[in-house]
């Protein structure tokens, strides 16, 4: 079999010596692993083979379902846990929202819907392709929730129950209201414009006064809902601005709307030269449209972040009088004894009283390297227990945990962030004051010159100077740039980020998970005896079979499951390694100090691979092989560094890892400015030192430990694959997980700033030129309205150039 063949299901290269096949649509297809084979077989067996002809993207990396995960799924059937996310809709009828991981194209949506619908007891299934959520309704007598989740896993996807938070339903409601406002503004302004075409033509051609009156009254009728219902947000924002004592952009908007409307009503009732119903409608429509686009982009990012937050069962096992009981985490008190099972995350901060195990504290340190915990050591909530059960005495729950402390640090750093937005708002408020004073002065002067023209001229001034173009200048550019970036998988979650990007002079990277992939792989195997490398691979993978250790995965991936040998007396030695008997021989796999044979080995291997983790395979007498594990750099890391440097941007690396590893990575990437063994507060301090020297810093990170720094940097990027706290505290989320997108975002930021400057220049220039003419009475109000519309049009079209 040719080794270059790729897996029909996931597209990865099929490793040598693997002969797994599935019949799909009368053709035998090769599979790369048991996981893919199982998934493909499940798809075909359920009559869903059409998935393969319809899909437009390959599925995410499949993973095998371990029995432990199935046990965890069973937890979701517990009524106490279900209470938080399952809607009880009548007798045995249940409904829940599930987050689906691994949706890559529309065929995935189809596959999940079709498969679930075939199950007995499922009433409805609806998968939302936009936010990757499924709404499932089922009969609890016929099917259990864990079975549904299991069926989804069978197809190679991963489902997590999603508790519909209140914030989410509020956001939904607001979006619906916004859409309604936009719809009313759209219908109203389109009709009003049609009428005004008649009025303009009438001015030219001659028109019956009674017809004019009819058209004006009809325009009034159409504009009434626009100016009351649709424009409500502007009045509210203006009012809250006035109450808090500063004039924001919404004040002149609201003022122009009210004046134009009252003026038009006056003209309609008592007669006059011009009505502005069409301008009012268009004004409201434009502003609402841009705001909706902005809110949509923000909402999408929040949803993406929420999807990343995988809902763990919020239950803990409490030990009381020798009995185990399930209790909600919130009911735990300091001093309680809890049991932490291997493979699960720790429910609360605590001190180990019994048992020895290793835990993954990556969320705190960013390093996926496990830490040994013995009685007396403290364990933090959210870290993952890897090897064996631990009994803990609780020292902190909820708000009192280390994790909650980090989240508080994020909030603080965020509030201290320099806000450019407020600066623009302050400038707008001065503009507003000047505008209002000027209009009043013009009005008073004309009172003395010609009373009959006052209203026309005041309106012309207000409409001409109406900050429509000015207030659209920035949001239009931001919306266009945002939608352009999101197509590339770059999600801008905070509006000011794009402005700041243009001024970035320094980019700071986290190492693990950001520059590197965060998953160690075996880069080299050195055979130390006559046993061939292949044999060592099989032995190592067999020994690691039972292990939950993060490094174990690297071994398991190297051999096919069929080759694994049975291991007797398998034992985990927390913090050291695993041992077991294969064919009557005892083998040890672990660090250098684990087995007597490797302890005596020279340090030379450690020297030749300074940044790597070495794992030794030994039998009772001698060392057989040494495995070199390294966390590989992301594929585009080097290219991204080169590109950033070409733009004249300085680069630093801040890492929680040790000196040798960081130096090694720095050398590979050509970065000299390195900081190692940084705790979250150290990172923040290093960043602030840079900022004091005048650098505008962009931070790129992924872990919870990066969150405070991400919040403190002027602009920050988070890897979508990272933790949700990191995503929430960053301004831009790289959904694509490509480092190269950082320089792409910087470029778009520069373009956006240029467009914003052009727009602002145009809007101000237009106002400055038109103002004197309007004040002197040379601009009739209808010409002013036309000018205003054209000037905003120019601004919007200029923004659209960003694509």
């Amino acid at each position, binding site marked *: 079999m040719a080794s270059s063949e790729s897996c029909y299901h996931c597209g990865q290269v099929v490793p040598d010596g693997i002969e797994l096949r599935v019949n799909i649509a009368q053709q035998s297809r090769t599979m790369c692993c048991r996981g893919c084979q199982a998934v493909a077989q499940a798809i075909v067996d359920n*009559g869903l083979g*059409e998935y393969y002809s319809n899909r437009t993207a390959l599925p995410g990396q499949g993973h095998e379902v371990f029995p432990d995960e199935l046990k965890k799924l069973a937890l979701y059937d517990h009524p106490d846990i279900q209470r938080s996310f399952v809607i009880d809709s009548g007798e045995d009828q249940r409904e829940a929202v599930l987050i689906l991981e691994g949706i890559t194209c529309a065929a995935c949506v189809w596959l999940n819907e079709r498969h679930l619908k075939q199950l007995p007891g499922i009433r409805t299934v609806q998968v939302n*392709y*936009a*936010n990757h959520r499924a709404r499932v309704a089922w009969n609890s007598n016929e099917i259990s929730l864990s079975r549904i989740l299991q069926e989804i896993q069978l197809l190679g996807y991963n489902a997590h129950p999603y508790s519909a938070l209140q914030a989410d339903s509020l956001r939904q409601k607001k979006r*619906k209201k916004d859409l309604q406002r936009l*719809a009313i503004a759209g219908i109203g302004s389109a009709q009003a414009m049609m009428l005004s075409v008649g009025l303009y033509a009438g001015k030219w051609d001659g028109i*019956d006064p009674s*017809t004019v009156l009819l058209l004006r009254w009809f325009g009034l009728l159409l504009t009434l809902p626009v100016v009351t219902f649709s424009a409500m947000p502007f009045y509210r924002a203006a009012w809250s601005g006035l109450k808090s004592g500063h004039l924001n952009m919404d004040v002149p908007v609201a003022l122009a709307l009210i004046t134009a409307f009252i003026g038009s009503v006056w003209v309609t009732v008592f007669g006059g030269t011009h009505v502005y119903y069409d301008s009012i409608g268009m004004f409201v429509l434009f502003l609402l449209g841009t705001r909706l686009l902005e809110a949509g982009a923000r909402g999408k990012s929040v949803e993406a972040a929420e999807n990343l937050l995988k809902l763990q069962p919020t239950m803990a096992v409490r030990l009381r009088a020798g009995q185990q009981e399930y209790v909600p985490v919130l009911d735990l008190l300091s001093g309680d004894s809890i049991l932490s099972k291997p493979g699960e995350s720790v429910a609360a901060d605590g001190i180990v009283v019994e048992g020895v195990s290793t835990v993954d504290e990556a969320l705190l340190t960013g390093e996926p390297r496990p830490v040994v915990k013995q009685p007396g050591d403290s364990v933090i909530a959210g870290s993952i227990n890897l090897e064996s059960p631990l009994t803990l005495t609780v020292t902190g729950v909820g708000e009192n945990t280390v994790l909650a402390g980090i989240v508080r640090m994020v909030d603080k750093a965020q509030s201290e962030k320099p806000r450019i937005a407020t600066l623009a708002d302050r400038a707008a408020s001065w503009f507003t004051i000047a505008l209002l004073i000027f209009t009043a002065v013009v009005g008073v002067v004309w009172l003395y010159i010609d009373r009959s023209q006052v209203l026309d001229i005041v309106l012309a001034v207000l409409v001409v100077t109406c900050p429509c173009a000015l207030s659209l200048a920035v949001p239009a550019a931001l919306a266009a740039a945002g939608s352009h970036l999101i197509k590339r998988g770059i999600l801008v979650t905070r509006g000011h980020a794009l402005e700041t990007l243009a001024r970035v002079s320094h980019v700071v990277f986290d190492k693990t998970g950001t520059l590197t992939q965060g998953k160690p792989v075996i880069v080299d195997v050195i055979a130390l005896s006559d046993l061939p490398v292949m044999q060592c691979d099989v032995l190592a993978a067999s020994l690691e079979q039972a292990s939950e250790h993060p490094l174990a995965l690297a071994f398991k991936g190297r051999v096919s499951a069929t080759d694994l040998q049975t291991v007797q007396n398998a034992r985990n030695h927390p913090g050291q390694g695993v041992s077991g008997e294969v064919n009557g021989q005892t083998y040890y796999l672990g660090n250098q100090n684990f087995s007597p044979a490797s302890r005596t080995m020279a340090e030379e291997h450690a020297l030749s691979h300074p940044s790597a983790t070495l794992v030794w395979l030994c039998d009772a007498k001698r060392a057989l092989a040494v495995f070199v594990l390294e966390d590989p750099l992301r594929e585009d890391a080097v290219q991204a560094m080169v590109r950033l440097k070409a733009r004249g941007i300085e680069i630093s690396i801040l890492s929680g890892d040790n000196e040798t590893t960081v130096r090694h990575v720095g050398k590979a990437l050509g970065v000299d400015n390195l900081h190692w063994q940084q705790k979250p507060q150290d990172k923040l301090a290093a960043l602030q030192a840079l900022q004091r020297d005048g650098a505008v810093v962009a931070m790129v990170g992924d872990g919870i430990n990066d969150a405070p720094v991400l919040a403190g940097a002027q602009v920050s990027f988070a890897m979508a694959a990272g933790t949700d706290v990191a995503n929430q505290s960053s301004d831009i989320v790289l959904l694509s997980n490509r480092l190269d997108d950082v320089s792409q975002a910087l470029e778009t930021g520069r373009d956006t700033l240029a467009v914003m400057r052009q727009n602002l220049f145009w809007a101000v220039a237009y106002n400055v030129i038109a103002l004197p003419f309007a004040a002197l009475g040379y601009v009739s109000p209808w010409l002013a309205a036309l000018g205003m519309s054209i000037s905003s049009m120019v601004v919007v079209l200029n923004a659209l150039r960003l694509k």
Partner: protein
Amino acid sequence: MTSTLVFLLGLTVIFILLVGFGIFWAIKNGQFEDMEGPAQRILMDEDDPMLPSNQLSDKTK
């Protein structure tokens, strides 16, 4: 002339109300929540006769 206009404007009111109610109904029904899925979904053949073991498909048709 004016009477024609009044008639046409009346007709406009009726159309606007219809369109308005239509859009409000659509918004309330969540028609705008997933803007990408339905466009793709139409391309999937729900009633492919080649599906062999799809016992329940007859019911959903």
